[in-house]
């Protein structure tokens, strides 16, 4: 472990105040010894940098999928006081409300095994990769609908079921959305990309539930062993990227005006309550809504494919849940014995609200919210449930995925996309992607093992395992 880092328990580590100058609170992260072997100093420095921001509450936090990002580390969580604290696009990321959702089907493994035609049809139905255009003819009005009403806009336009909405974090849209601070440039990028998957780590997978760890929770969520599901991982596309780009420039000026000293320019920020802070928050919420609408549009396309190929009725493909993993929210949390609103940033981290929280579907109130953790291509994904432990330790947050360990340039040199695809095919996993690099970039070996990452959050009590899913078909952007 890096010099200066203190082990607090088996899975908890502390970055003491003073690790970088100006820290206001200690950093805290969750990691097993085996994951510690790949910990980067740059990621810990970023965790410590976040602790220097004004109004940060309790700890700058990181989940076991921590790795080197920009501004906050990936896997970073921090909550800020509503009057003293700040909001920063560097704590959300370029891909606002990048998130993941899980869709159930009534099919079993035998129905989809070896069915390349299913994966090919999904690849045709969902535009993927660089320069992919939406098949929907969207206009400025539709864009406004997506930004203000999120998944609800898509459902009301005929792209989903009413029941989908209660199974989304925030019911699929943030009421705080404000489209005024969304620039013309951001809108221009948003219009042609509604319903597109994007590239990089975004994917759509056909998966099978291979193991249930918590039968009561699995039943309440609506998943059973052997069931075929569909997982969708994407975000707010060019619209969100541009909102981040625009507002970092605006907040750079604000950082100086409010006399905030920063160790990294990508942490540009402004008080939550300032006009600049509110403008970013409103535009970010509008982008988050676009992302929820986008995942809803892709869900519709996927359901149509299953309906056509397997004659599955549309209504028999309910949404299990949809979570955001790059977002800032105003949430009620306890701090120092007092419960009140705080501004929580999650950058590559997932909300994991426990039983009794009012922001989760009423039918799941006794269990906790579903937490969906995508694996990397070819490795298992997991469903977990939120816990009281997360409420107490991490402002209701857990990990978001497996976390990279190898750079894309190394991956290109070391790994052949063709060989990876052939290896996966031997395991019964069929991959469709626009190019070889899209496969080698995201090969299983470039990520921390997802199994170990979820074991850490499970044992640390930040969320508890419910089910493991394994892929049978993957489409990548």
């Amino acid at each position, binding site marked *: 472990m890096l010099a200066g880092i203190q082990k607090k328990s088996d899975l908890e580590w502390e970055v003491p105040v003073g690790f970088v100058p100006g820290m206001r609170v200690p950093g805290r992260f969750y990691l097993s010894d085996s994951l510690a072997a790949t910990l980067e100093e740059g990621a810990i420095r970023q965790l410590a940098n976040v602790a220097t921001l004004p109004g940060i509450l309790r700890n700058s936090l990181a989940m076991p999928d921590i790795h080197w990002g920009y501004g906050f580390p990936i896997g970073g969580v921090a909550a800020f006081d509503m009057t003293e604290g700040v909001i920063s696009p560097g704590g959300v990321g370029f891909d606002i409300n990048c998130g993941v959702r899980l869709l159930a089907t009534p099919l079993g493994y035998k129905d989809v095994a070896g069915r390349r035609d299913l994966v090919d049809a999904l690849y045709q139905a969902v535009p993927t990769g660089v320069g992919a255009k939406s098949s929907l003819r969207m206009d400025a009005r539709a864009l406004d609908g997506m930004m203000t009403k999120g998944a609800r806009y898509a459902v009301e336009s005929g792209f989903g079921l009413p029941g989908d909405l209660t199974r989304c974090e925030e019911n699929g849209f943030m009421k705080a959305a404000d489209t005024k601070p969304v620039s013309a440039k951001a809108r221009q*990028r948003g219009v042609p990309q509604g319903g597109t998957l994007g590239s990089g780590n975004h994917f759509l997978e056909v998966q099978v539930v291979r193991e249930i760890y918590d039968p009561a929770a699995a039943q309440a969520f609506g998943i059973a062993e052997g069931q075929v599901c569909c997982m969708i991982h994407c975000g707010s596309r060019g619209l969100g990227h541009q909102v981040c780009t625009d507002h970092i420039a605006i907040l750079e000026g604000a950082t100086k005006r409010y006399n905030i000293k920063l160790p990294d320019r990508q942490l540009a920020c402004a008080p939550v309550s300032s006009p600049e802070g509110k403008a970013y928050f409103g535009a970010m919420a509008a982008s988050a809504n676009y992302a929820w609408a986008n995942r809803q549009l892709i869900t519709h396309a996927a359901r149509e494919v299953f309906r056509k190929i397997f004659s599955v009725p549309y209504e028999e493909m309910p949404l299990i849940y949809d979570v955001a993993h790059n977002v800032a929210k105003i949430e009620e949390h306890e701090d120092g014995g007092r419960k009140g609103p705080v501004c929580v940033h999650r950058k590559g981290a997932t909300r994991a609200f426990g039983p009794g929280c009012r922001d989760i579907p009423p039918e799941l109130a006794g269990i906790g919210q579903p937490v969906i953790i995508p694996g990397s291509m070819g490795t298992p994904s997991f469903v977990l449930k939120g816990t009281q432990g997360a409420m107490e330790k991490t402002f209701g947050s857990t990990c978001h995925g497996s976390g990279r360990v190898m750079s894309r340039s190394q991956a290109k040199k070391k790994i052949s996309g063709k060989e990876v695809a052939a290896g996966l095919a031997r395991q019964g996993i069929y991959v469709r992607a626009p190019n070889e690099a899209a496969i080698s970039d995201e090969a299983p070996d470039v990520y921390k093992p997802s199994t170990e990452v979820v074991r850490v959050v499970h044992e640390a009590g930040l969320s508890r395992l419910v089910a493991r899913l394994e892929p049978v078909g993957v489409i990548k952007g």
Partner: protein
Amino acid sequence: MSFEELPHTADVRIRARAATLDGIFADLTNALMQVMYGKEPHSPGLKGALTREIDASGDDTGSLLRNFLSDVLFVSEVDRIVFTGATVQVLEKEHTLHAVLSGEPFDPARHAGGTEVKGISFSGLRIEQDTNGYIAEIVFDV
């Protein structure tokens, strides 16, 4: 053209060297296009068929570079152009620039070899001058 990719776990980190600041900005434009569209986007017949001009400004050279590349990304995506040439004139003291970019229409058959760039990051951004000219490092979020 002189740029190289440096290791970065999550994103793409590029280092460029050039005799002049103009050259650094042009090299990084080419690096951005290569990341987005793959290594060989050129189509001889079409090269330079489309041009765009960009004026950018910033508070210092770093933010000028970040703002300029953010604009290149925007224009390339929205106008669906793969830029294959860049002439950039930087006014260093004013932190402004004028660029003329030339390129060809985006064609999924030839330009799908890259990955989307979500944004140009300030993290790890540095531009320095030494006896050999300029060196710059920048991170593209992908």
